[in-house]
């Protein structure tokens, strides 16, 4: 693939260069039918997750165990990483350490260059999206082919993934049919998912057979054994790594678990939380290279140590990237992945990404109703809603939120804290709403009123009704 510049669509940025989630959401909801369809697609996945979870009697205990194992691992991450490196090295795996995205990309290019590899097949890796690996390699003459079907679709369209598990969830089959007609020569107007997948299978099989190197992500790395686990439904990670002479596995340092037995807990949770399947089709355990093959594992920090050091946010590193919190999020479902301007969208993206650059991503923690649905489904019990709330406070303290909003919130807080003042305000607001024409009242309500109908004011407030009707002494 040639480099076609920055992927579309670009996130909406404000005057300071910060991501403006609300503006990105506005762009998305402009197409109402599409918004409704997107919302329903994700809710469908959420419902599959619910059905799968309800078949496991131990579900809540599993979540506890998963959270405890990750908490323990993160508390001794340095020791487990050293153990992993030592065990993996003893098995002939080459372990690399990358402080940041740039180092990761250089290491990958270095491995490819040393072998004269020019054709790279990749299976899904959000870490390499985070590192901008594709553009880096393509710019240096490497032919990079994403092989996960959803990722291939968005790669052909020069778009980033809009979701971490279902990269093309924002696209309709007609659009995918057009993309395949243009790039793979499928018949015009053919949008049958079976036919399109069959075409992709043929197209990508040729790439697999011709690849000089395969790159995969890592779902879990086992400290005690020095091995890695990669889970896919399509089999693309296995096809790539079973054929190519070099396998590069890129992983964030938080992917470790202490023992192989811990995987029993995580694999029971992962697929059920992600897609509602009892298991992914392939859960591949790799403990050494094939004969004649080289296996490299790149351990990437890229801000994770800093996040681990944040008392309020280290828990986000327990994440196993199942996307359950994204699928359930009412804001994600109706604003789309691109509105976040971040590799990882949704609630988990909104607590991870501000750690990279709070100024740029200050709007993300506000892309939430704080309903807590994310935390309720998270298989490793990341307290996402609490972390979103804490990032909001930091964003306000740092002055990255509009001063008007900050002032309004402080005034609102004062009003809510003072019963007499609250009574007075409610009375005045009620009177205004009763007499002022609706369109004008909505304008007075600012951003809140732009897209929402204001409530009908009852003739009597609850408080007045209660005083009039309650029994017993006043």
């Amino acid at each position, binding site marked *: 693939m040639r480099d076609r510049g920055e992927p579309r669509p670009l996130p909406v940025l404000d005057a300071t260069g910060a991501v403006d989630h609300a503006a990105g959401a506005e762009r998305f909801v402009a197409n109402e039918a599409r918004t409704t369809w997107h919302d329903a*697609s994700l809710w*469908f*996945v959420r419902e599959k997750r619910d059905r799968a979870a309800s078949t496991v009697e*131990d579900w809540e205990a*599993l979540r506890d*165990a998963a959270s*405890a*194992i990750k908490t323990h691992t993160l508390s001794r991450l340095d020791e487990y990483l050293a153990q992993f490196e030592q065990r993996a090295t003893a098995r002939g795996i080459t372990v690399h350490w990358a402080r940041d995205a740039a180092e990761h990309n250089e290491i990958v290019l270095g491995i490819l260059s040393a072998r004269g590899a020019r054709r790279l097949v990749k299976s899904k890796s959000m870490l390499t999206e985070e590192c901008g690996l594709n553009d880096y390699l393509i710019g240096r003459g490497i032919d990079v082919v994403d092989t996960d*079907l*959803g990722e291939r*679709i968005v790669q052909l369209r020069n778009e980033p993934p809009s979701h971490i598990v*279902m990269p*093309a969830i924002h*696209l309709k*089959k007609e659009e*995918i049919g057009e993309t395949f007609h243009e790039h793979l020569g499928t018949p015009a107007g053919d949008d049958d*998912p*079976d*036919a*399109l*997948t*069959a*075409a*992709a*299978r043929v197209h*990508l099989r040729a790439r697999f*057979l011709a690849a000089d190197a395969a790159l995969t992500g890592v779902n879990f790395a*086992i400290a005690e054994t*020095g*091995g890695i686990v990669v889970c896919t*439904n*399509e*089999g*693309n990670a*296995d*096809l790539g790594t*079973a*054929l190519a002479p070099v396998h590069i596995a890129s992983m964030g340092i938080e992917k470790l678990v202490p023992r*192989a*037995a811990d*995987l*029993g*807990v995580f*694999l*029971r949770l992962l*697929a059920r939380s992600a897609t509602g*399947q*009892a*298991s*992914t*089709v*392939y*859960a*591949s*355990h*790799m*403990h*050494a*290279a*094939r004969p004649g093959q080289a296996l490299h594992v790149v351990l990437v920090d890229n801000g994770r140590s800093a996040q681990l050091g944040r008392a309020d946010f280290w828990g986000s590193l327990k994440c196993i990237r199942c996307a359950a919190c994204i699928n359930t999020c009412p804001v994600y479902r109706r604003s789309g992945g691109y509105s976040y301007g971040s590799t990882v969208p949704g609630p988990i993206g909104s607590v991870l990404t501000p750690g990279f650059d709070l100024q740029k991503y200050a709007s993300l923690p506000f892309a939430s109703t704080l309903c807590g649905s994310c935390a309720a489904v998270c298989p490793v019990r990341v307290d996402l809603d609490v972390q979103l709330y804490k990032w909001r406070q930091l964003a306000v303290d740092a002055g990255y939120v509009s001063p008007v909003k900050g002032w309004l919130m402080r005034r609102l807080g004062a009003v809510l804290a003072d019963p007499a003042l609250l009574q007075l305000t409610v009375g005045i607001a009620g009177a205004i709403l009763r007499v002022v024409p609706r369109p004008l009242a909505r304008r007075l309500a600012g951003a809140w009123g732009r897209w929402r109908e204001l409530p009908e004011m009852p003739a009597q407030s609850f408080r007045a009704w209660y005083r009039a009707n309650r029994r017993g002494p006043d």
Partner: protein
Amino acid sequence: MPLGFAQRIVSRDDLVARFIDSAAGAAARVVHGTRAELATLVAGFSGDGLASDGVARFDREAQRVASRCLSMVPGVPGTVAVPDDPHALADLDLLVCEGVLGVAENGGIWLPASRLGERSALVLARHVVVVLARSSIVADLHAAYAAVDVSAESFGVFLAGPSKTADIEQSLVIGAHGAMGVTVVLLDE
């Protein structure tokens, strides 16, 4: 840090029934047989016995006799040997292998590299037949990890059904990159 999930006592028949349900849920086909019948059973799978839905509809080769067969199961004749170069299996029709254990809760079957002969055969073959003894089925993944050392070989996989994707409008399609069909032969042993 023992995990302490309840070990419920279930009969072998219940375990097998749950495994069959789970395997069907993962779109695998389950048939029953004995070791003595294996060669005949597998020979019978050639041709349309293995065609399934999904991309197989578009696979012009799907209906032809499965002529290129790699068999790792004694007594079941294959037509190709394990090659030095995995690319030599690019046109593999059928892989026949024997699972180490089956997992009742998700239909997964543990297949280490030695059982596959060649790792790539698992995903290059259009169809995979996995032979599995009923007695090897365990309740859940905790039991599975307790029973096998997943680090004993360079590669091992829990396989649950044929390759699949739902990346186009959430429509389930069987046969993304790997096998378009998986048949599990449950042995009465």
